[in-house]
């Protein structure tokens, strides 16, 4: 659908990195919002997110983080717009500007430190032993080390410090 970009010849703040020009074909039918499990209970209105994202920078909107990425909107959009993918792109734009929720920052730091998002605690280590499940410190250590190298290489540790 890239023809719409060329014809319109306009540049939107989020639009370029999104590489998702089909978003311009949205006709605001609201199927996405009607399918949204989160929108039932929160201020997330995915139809508005789609509309606003082509007009302005919405990195500040807390609603971006209320999406469970369930893909209902994307599956049902009659225009075939990759709505959930767009949410992911909008989120990474927000993250680049340092807009990271404290709980997410914490999980990221677990990953940097341990190679896991939910690290093993003492209680569950004991349970693992009781169940005769592997407690393979050498393999885990290697994983930890390599993940650290990769996260430094991609600049992720810097990104979450922002």
């Amino acid at each position, binding site marked *: 659908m890239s023809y719409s970009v060329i014809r319109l010849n306009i540049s939107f703040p989020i639009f370029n990195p999104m590489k998702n020009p089909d978003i311009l074909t949205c006709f605001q039918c609201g199927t996405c919002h009607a399918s949204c*499990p*989160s929108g*039932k*209970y*929160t201020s997330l209105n995915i139809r508005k997110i789609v509309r606003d994202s082509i007009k302005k920078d919405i990195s500040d909107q807390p609603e971006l*983080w*209320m*999406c*469970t*990425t*369930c*893909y*209902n909107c*994307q*599956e049902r959009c009659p225009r075939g717009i990759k709505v*959930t993918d767009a*949410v*992911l792109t909008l*989120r*990474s734009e927000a*993250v680049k500007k340092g807009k*990271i*929720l*404290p*709980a*997410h920052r914490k*999980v*990221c730091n677990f*990953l940097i430190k341990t*190679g*896991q*998002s*939910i*690290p*093993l*605690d003492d209680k*569950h280590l004991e*349970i*693992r032993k009781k*169940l005769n*499940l*592997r407690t*393979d410190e050498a*393999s*885990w250590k*290697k*994983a*930890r080390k*390599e*993940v650290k*190298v*990769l*996260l430094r*290489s*991609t*600049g*992720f540790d810097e*990104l*979450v410090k922002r």
Partner: protein
Amino acid sequence: MKKLSLFTGCLIPNRYPGIEKATMLVLERLGIKCSYLKEAACCPAPGIYRSFDKITWLTLASRNLVLAEEKDTDILTICNGCFSSLMDANNILKNDAGLRNEVNAHLQKIGKEYRGTIEVRHIIEFLHTDIGVKKLGDAIDKPLEIRAAVHYGCHLLKPTRDRKLGSAECPVFFDELVEATGAKSVPYEGKTSCCGAGGGVRSAMLETSFRMTEYKLDRIQKAGVDCIIDACPFCHLQYDAGQVELEKSGKNYDIPVLHFTQLLGLALGLTSDEVGLHLNEIVNLKFEEKIAQIQNGNKTEI
């Protein structure tokens, strides 16, 4: 078909090891050869890392994929999040040379290279496709005559363009597996709706996530079931710990939550403890008694 390596992820080994135990026992009983992907790290969780930085997400996922490439095995996942991260990353990297080069430049620093030689499987679609409902049913002596609410979980099915497992609106393959154990998959309103945990919502907005869980649990309870069957430890956690949380607002569900491998374990004659039901937050002894009665061949009233 290649042999399989089991990718356990973070949540199962570190919070619900009972699911891991059940999986190992079930695979063994069914004669399916599968060894651990030993040096694996976080998949990494799609909800957060995929949103944060695509290249980081792809790079960490590719490291896990390469570990399996080195063993020349496919990857077997038992979590919808791991399935989604690893399968999507694998598809993207197989098809996009630019991203593949970028990722390989990072992987080079740990002496690895992504080549794109393996596939990523989820235990539900694997059992359905490669083992088959009939063969699974034949392996079961005493059918579990119970009523189950099946929860597929979003990322097992969607995006359908990548999963290629059929319709996400009224899927059937998971129900067929559940019914192969003798259980009845009971229809309920909102069956394909999200449990509320995904996308980093659970970790950052717990209350919000529980509103979605409550929506589901209310409808599941209304349908009158003995248990919930899931295919993902995040959904599992959301339903299991969620019930305890929702008790504070006056709800009383007490519905045991089982990963499919736990249900299958019971159907293959393992005890509730052996499949790790005692490690759940919700421990429903009436349910466990009912299972024991069925396993011991006593007549139960349903």
